[in-house]
């Protein structure tokens, strides 16, 4: 009996308690030096443009930000004069498949879709991650310090997604963002109905999709009730009742219903998104973000009212029917809904795009302002920093340059909204992880090593 309780405790901690769960993050930042960034132009990720400001980093965190900061540090201080250079928070991508669709994109590394059943809430994308994917280092050189890895969109419910720091490690746990919540990947529309419909099984239609989600949530609600009723029993009562059988799939879905796992929903069409909002209301969970959402602009007010982010491309379209109604103003419209209460995110879903999220934001910003909005660059910077941090549930520790947050920082050689801008230095938790002025800092994966010339790395 005691053994059975132990199992249940593990089950519960697995599902409801982040700390001490299996596969927990083992990433611990190295001791970071004291860093003093002087006279920089800063987009702080909170919507402010701070020209000629100083920024102090201590113990891996942002210590102070201000004009003409006076520092009284006794230890060694790494000081950078950043006149005419720009500083932003580390860039965050809320939609990546790095590690699960690694490069080279060969079938043995195609680990992003468990497309064997339309509901696979039991799988975790992190268990597919190949730590030696050469794409991580390329993203870092584009200023990306944090990324969220999702399962693909073949399934109605594809499994858990995980947030990573862009830290080189040969374990998955060594890269995981400490204490970041999991996400649940859900997918609307063409992909699931194509994958399963072509096999003559459900779902083969959008109505089949909707039924599929609802069936899964009915099961999850039952499971959650059973668990809760067992947990609320007295110790003596527990001695005579069997605990519910542990179910990995239900663990994940119950985690969503308990608000501990954030729903990230791939969904293109306006009316489908509204159906998904109704399903979320029916079962009492919240949708954190709609991803890809090419038609988000058609329901931007509704998204703002429901506090749902739109994680969007600047201009992708036409590769399928549900992506036909693209407007380049999509991101700006979502951002500006209800007088600026919207949450817009520029995401990549692409190993090239992730390296240039600043350029994608620049396109979306220009299109929005051309259409008559008055959006500042400082606000647009939130689309690739604070807003994705919020959608990943890590906005308290990263995503903007405010005192006490992780010192995840990018120094750009010029205004990052230009195509000519490059991430010059990238800090994660106050450690200089990439320095364009010292290319030996460039992380080299095991894959890259000696693969073309034995004495060189791939990118040398």
């Amino acid at each position: 009996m005691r053994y059975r309780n132990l199992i249940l405790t593990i089950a519960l901690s697995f599902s409801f308690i982040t700390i001490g769960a299996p596969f927990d993050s083992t990433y611990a930042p190295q001791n970071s030096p004291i860093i003093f960034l002087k006279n920089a132009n800063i987009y702080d990720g909170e919507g402010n443009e701070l020209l000629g400001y100083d920024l102090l980093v201590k113990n891996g965190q942002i210590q102070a930000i201000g004009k003409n900061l006076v520092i009284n540090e006794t230890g060694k201080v790494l000081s950078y004069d950043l006149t005419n250079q720009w500083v932003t928070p580390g860039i965050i991508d809320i939609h990546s498949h790095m590690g699960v669709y690694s490069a080279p994109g060969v079938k043995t590394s195609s680990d992003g879709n468990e497309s064997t059943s339309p509901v696979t809430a039991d799988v975790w994308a992190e268990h597919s991650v190949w730590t030696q994917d050469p794409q991580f280092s390329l993203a870092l050189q584009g200023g990306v310090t944090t990324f969220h890895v999702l399962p693909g969109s073949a399934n109605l419910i594809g499994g858990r997604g995980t947030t990573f720091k862009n830290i080189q490690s040969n374990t998955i746990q060594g890269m995981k963002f400490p204490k970041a919540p999991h996400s649940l990947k859900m997918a609307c529309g063409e992909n699931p109905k194509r994958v399963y419909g072509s096999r003559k099984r459900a779902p083969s239609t959008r109505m089949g999709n909707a039924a599929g989600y609802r069936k899964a949530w009915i099961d999850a609600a039952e499971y959650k009730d059973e668990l809760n009723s067992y947990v609320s029993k007295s110790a003596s009562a527990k001695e005579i009742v069997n605990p519910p059988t542990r179910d990995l799939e239900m663990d994940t879905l119950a985690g969503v219903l308990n608000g501990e796992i954030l729903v990230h929903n791939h969904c293109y069409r306006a009316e489908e998104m509204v159906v998904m909002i109704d399903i979320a209301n029916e079962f009492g969970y919240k949708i954190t973000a709609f991803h890809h959402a090419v038609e988000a602009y058609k329901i931007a007010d509704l998204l703002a009212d429901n506090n749902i982010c739109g994680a969007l491309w600047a201009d992708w379209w036409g590769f399928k029917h549900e992506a036909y109604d693209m407007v380049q103003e999509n991101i700006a419209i979502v951002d500006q809904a209800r007088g600026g209460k919207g949450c817009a995110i520029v995401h990549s879903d692409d190993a090239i795009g992730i390296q240039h999220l600043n350029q994608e934001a620049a396109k979306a910003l220009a299109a929005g302002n051309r259409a008559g909005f008055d959006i500042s660059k400082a606000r647009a910077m939130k689309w690739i920093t604070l807003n994705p941090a919020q959608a990943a549930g890590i906005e308290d520790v990263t995503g903007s340059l405010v005192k006490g947050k992780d010192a995840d920082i990018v120094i750009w050689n010029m205004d990052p909204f230009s195509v000519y801008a490059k991430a010059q230095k990238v800090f994660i938790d106050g450690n200089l992880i990439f320095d364009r002025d010292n290319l030996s800092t460039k992380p080299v994966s095991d894959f890259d090593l000696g693969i073309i010339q034995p004495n060189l790395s791939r990118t040398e």
Partner: protein
Amino acid sequence: MNRIHLITVFIFSLSFTLNADILIKNGNIYSGDSAPFIGDIYIKDGKIHSIGSLNIKATKEIDAQGKIVTPGFIAPMTSIGIVEINSLDVTRDDESDYLNMGFSIFRAYNPNSTLIPWNRANGITSAISIPQQTSMPLAGMGSYFILDGNMNISGSKDMMMLGRIGASSGSRSEDLDLLENLINLGKLAKNRPYEKVIESPIAVFFELLIQDIEALDKVANEGLPLVIKANRASDIKHLIDIKNKYKLNMILAGVEDAPIVIDELAASEIPVIINPMDNIPDSFDELSSSLELSALLSNAGITVLFDTSRSHNYHLIRQGAGNAVAYGMDYLDAIAGLSTNVANVFGLKDRGSITKGHYADIAIWESDPLEPASIPSYIFINGIESDLTTRSSRLKDRYIKKLDKK
């Protein structure tokens, strides 16, 4: 560059007579083939009549003070007009059922495709549309289209052939062998009726038809541009040998491993089409991929044209060119790679640069055209000002009005 003169049938059916003459004043002109200069451009009868400091009165005058003026850009590898929605077979006409090298996409071109106004409004005034790659080393023929959306299609039919060498389920060695065999078949067709050539064992084996032999004849004997997608250094080297051996008008696309064979490639005078933003080692053929590729090739004297990995948004070759410049490519080389170089490489007559006597395909830019956030303020195709409305702008207008702006 020592290019074989291109024999293609140009099928222009343009009617300029009703068009107003236009004067673009004080533009910052990046002509595509010269250093930038401030000047005026006078457009008459669809063509660039004169360039310089002009004292001419025109029906329509545009003040381009402080604006960059470029040729309309030319996208060399697109599906414009032949694929509307990638995942819907019924909207795509880029795959053949029984033709091989002779497969022509020309008559599939839809002047009403939504991709035409979209790419035009973003600075692309003409494009080459190509068939899908097949398992064969030579796939089919691409055609050149002026993106004016006119039902009387203008451009150039079957003006290039597409091929590929590289990673596949079979062996690239066999593919290279097959490629040579097919070129030899084309050589054979020079002095022999096509009806005889299709009786050759290789033609019989692959069930080639008259159209296929005719296409091979053009590539093997008439200098029709042959664009081969290849990335691995060893493949590039073999293709250089084949180009020299058969005196082909070869262009290589991809070439992500080019840094390893840069000297041989430069010596071959083969132009290349690359995606400057693709630094992903997507396959074991592309391990050298990097953002510095454009600069490396261009600085070695190799003619560089641009491709993008995104469908539908072929105008993103501008963003690619911008990134190429960010990573060391000369700005003027990048502009040429979007315009003049495409025209030169593919023998597109009287297009691709702001030159007296050329068709007036011109873009006046809001700001730097290599900044992806920049768009054209004006587009002219054959001297006619384009309407920059798109289906996308219509959707935007419909919904932006409905927004609660409180």
